């Protein structure tokens, strides 16, 4: 075992309080995936470019591959595992991604949905340009984004109680 000093951290993850000892250099993404077994957030680049590791921390989107776990001490975190409705059904965003075919390999999806969740908190009724800018920190190699945009529009409409009109092709 490594002889590096372990630091205690406490945080609330998906509504549950967790306490662990971590090395100061442990990245938040590794803490979530390996210590807490929350394998929804993924690692795609380790340099903050791809956004596959996006989680919500204190109401903001963060890339957990470039934060240390100790920086999340005392924070409130939400990961993709905390996105479904309380009754276990798919949230409007999760449903939107399925209905609009907003995913293919699924690897970017947890980060993308988590980012979109925060985006819709910041701006409940975004335009297409605002959605595109709002998710520009999250890369997708499969979909070309067009259907991701529609998925987020679908969710925004559902959350706002309006009808979703799929944009004419």
């Amino acid at each position, binding site marked *: *075992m*490594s*002889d590096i000093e372990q630091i205690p951290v406490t945080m609330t993850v998906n509504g549950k309080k967790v306490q662990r000892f971590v*090395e100061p*250099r442990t990245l938040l993404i*590794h803490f979530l*995936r*390996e210590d807490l*077994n*929350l*394998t*929804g*957030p*993924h*690692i*795609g*680049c*380790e*340099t903050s*470019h*791809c956004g*596959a590791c996006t989680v919500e921390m204190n109401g903001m989107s963060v890339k957990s591959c470039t934060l240390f776990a100790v920086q999340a001490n005392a924070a409130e975190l939400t*990961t*993709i*595992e905390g*996105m*479904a409705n309380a009754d276990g059904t*798919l949230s409007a965003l*999760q*449903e939107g*991604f*399925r*209905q609009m*075919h907003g*995913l*293919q*390999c*699924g*690897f*970017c*999806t*947890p980060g993308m*949905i988590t980012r979109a969740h925060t985006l819709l908190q910041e701006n409940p009724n975004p335009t297409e340009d605002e959605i*595109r800018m709002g*998710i*520009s*920190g*999250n*890369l*997708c*190699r*499969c*979909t*070309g*984004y*067009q*259907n*991701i*945009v529609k998925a987020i529009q679908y969710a925004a409409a559902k959350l706002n109680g309006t009808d979703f009109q799929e944009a004419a*092709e």
Partner: protein
Amino acid sequence: MNDMTPTREQREAALEGMGCKRKRVEDIRFTQGKGNYVDDLKLPGMLFGDFVRSPYAHAKVTKIDATEALKLPGVIAVLTAEDLKGVNLAWMPTLAGDVQMVLADGKVLYQNQEVAFVVAENRYIADDAIQLVEVEYEELPVLVDPFKSMDADAPVLRPDLEGKTEGAHGPRKHHNHIFTWEVGDKDETSRAFAEADVTIKEMISYHRTHPSPLETCQCVASMDKVNGELTVWGTFQAPHVIRTVASLLSTIPEHKIHVIAPDIGGGFGNKVGAYPGYICSIVASIVTGVPIKWVEDRMENLSTTSFARDYHMTAEIAAKNDGTVTGLKVHVLADHGGFDACADPSKWPAGFFNIVTGSYDFPTAHLEVDGVYTNKAPGGVAYRCSFRVTEAAYCIERAMDILAQKLGMDPADLRIKNFVKPEQFPYQSALGWEYDSGDYHTAMHKAMDTIGYRELRAEQKAKQEAFRRGETREIMGIGVSFFTEIVGAGPSKNCDILGVAMFDSAEIRVHPTGSVISRMGTKSQGQGHETTWAQIIATEIGIPAADIMVEEGNTDTAPYGLGTYGSRSTPVAGAAIALAARKIRNKAQMIAAHMLEVSEYDLDWDIDGFQVKGNPQARKSMKEIAWAAYHAPPPGMEPGLEAVSYYDPPNMTYPFGAYFCVMDIDVDTGVAKTRRFYALDDCGTRINPMIIEGQVHGGLTEAFAIAMGQEIRYDEIGNVMGASFMDFFIPTAVETPHWETDHTVTPSPHHPIGAKGVGESPNVGGVPAFSNAVNDAFQFLGSTHIQMPHDAWRLWQAAKNLGAHG
């Protein structure tokens, strides 16, 4: 019949069969973060492996000292080539008939080459240990430019091949030469050029790039020494091939190797081959007796595992004054890096590049490809394309534009004039292929009408005049691309991988209650097989897709197949699925006849069951038949209802499409804006239009990236530039254009359901559409050809060189 009886339409809709925009079953787990990717796997006692890599592109390795690394608490082992020699694994065979070092054996041939494999308790300690392994290098002269590979004084890259005048694909003519591949009629083509009214010649480069799926390559290897069994979970597009290779290399019997490809986060060709990480993890697990996980980081992925393209293509066309093409001559200089690790069917050193005559009726053609070594990473994978088809499509589509320019003809009209005509199918191409079906004229005219092609040309002309008058600094380009792909490798008569014929397979089991489990030799990496394969079965045997589970990727349970790449899943496994389903339906017909006490010839198939001819009330649904198959089969018939099919395709399939790109370029900034992109695809029968459109969107986005900036570049001493997402262009939602999709349907005549495959078409057709738009924009300023990638800096330079900056 009472009112509750579902109508035929309702019964048909309930199946969610072929042609339906069925929502994906995969999405339930993926949208909840419940996918099962390799790095999610945790096994008791599992250790982590990581590589010490070379900072130099060409150097002798004179010493590796792991003493300090091994002193670090938590470090278990450090493997070098010397250790691998003990198990005869210091080198491994490549799919292209070459050999490749697993770990540096005396020298390194490219930057970031694997030198030693550190095994530690966790990733952090492994990373610490890498810094403590001391390696001494003696630098050698670096060869980066493939055009200098065969110079007399070029450095010898591969001393292991010294004296070998014969390679896997014929004679070698220089110490850095790999193969020469020649196809077509040289004399006849020379005659066509001698007699031509007009000829063009251009060196068209398709730069080095990388598939870069969002999930990198990774594996977990676990050797059970007690039972002598090896299990490897990995990001494998072709799990069965990996198992066979692992067995051949390790001498562990194939039935004692379990290869499992769980969910894969994109592949695009990157995850076809076998990499040093897999071999080292397996060896480390054999040595330590515990599971070993290896996960590539992004920099390792971009700089070591499988680049794509890097073809330098000199194209010449002979033509008559009226635009009729009479001959095609192409020479390719193929940069393969330090080892020839091209992932092509074994007999095809340049893949199916001989599809380079494209959609046009060339009476004669000649092609020669020279493969050479350089100090770059090995690979040459089919990045979202059938083997080297993207390169071929780019070559011919650029060359046709250049010919149109020379003739003063419209590039769309020139294409139409030379299209293979509908009545010519099946069409024998001058370079040896038999195109199965096509209706190029209908597709092209539909595309031109939809986009308003003639009006766009008029607008372009007006803009050019305005530019000349100094009223605008923006130029407009219209990119035309009409591609023909060759996919579905492939027929056993000409396609194999390491001797295994490239068939594919399906097994379908109908359970007594009428639910189904089916398994295939393919492996989805985002294509949505769990959804679409069930749709084929649903239509064929009349059981709702929702009651059909599709499983791939586990070599213990799935029938042997060659995997998913080269758009081969639908053409090959899709056919196997339909044929296995038809075997089930045939047996079901006999059971139904027995149940209804009629001859099987008196029955008609009707959506989800059999009915007596002329008496539709007398019918048995597939659910009823399935129960009978297990409960009361006809006397003498084996109980059960299942089937297996191994499908050896009689031919490839030839999807095609017409793509148009409208682009505006600011000559003062070099910034190009895609105003419109229209993609018409003909992939034959369409299984799930939603998934097809999604694949087209994704492939076009990759094409946009490649054409407009994505590149793996090397500096003069072999440092790889662009090995992170900071430098390697992956478009975000902001840059990515809006995609318009369309289709025609020309079924494949030899495929059981007429489907051709589509996943790669948008990459194949998209790159020439973008590049032709850029080139078309600059043409009126006197430009003939501008090399890709067309990033803003290069376009600004092009504008400057053409005098557009005054």
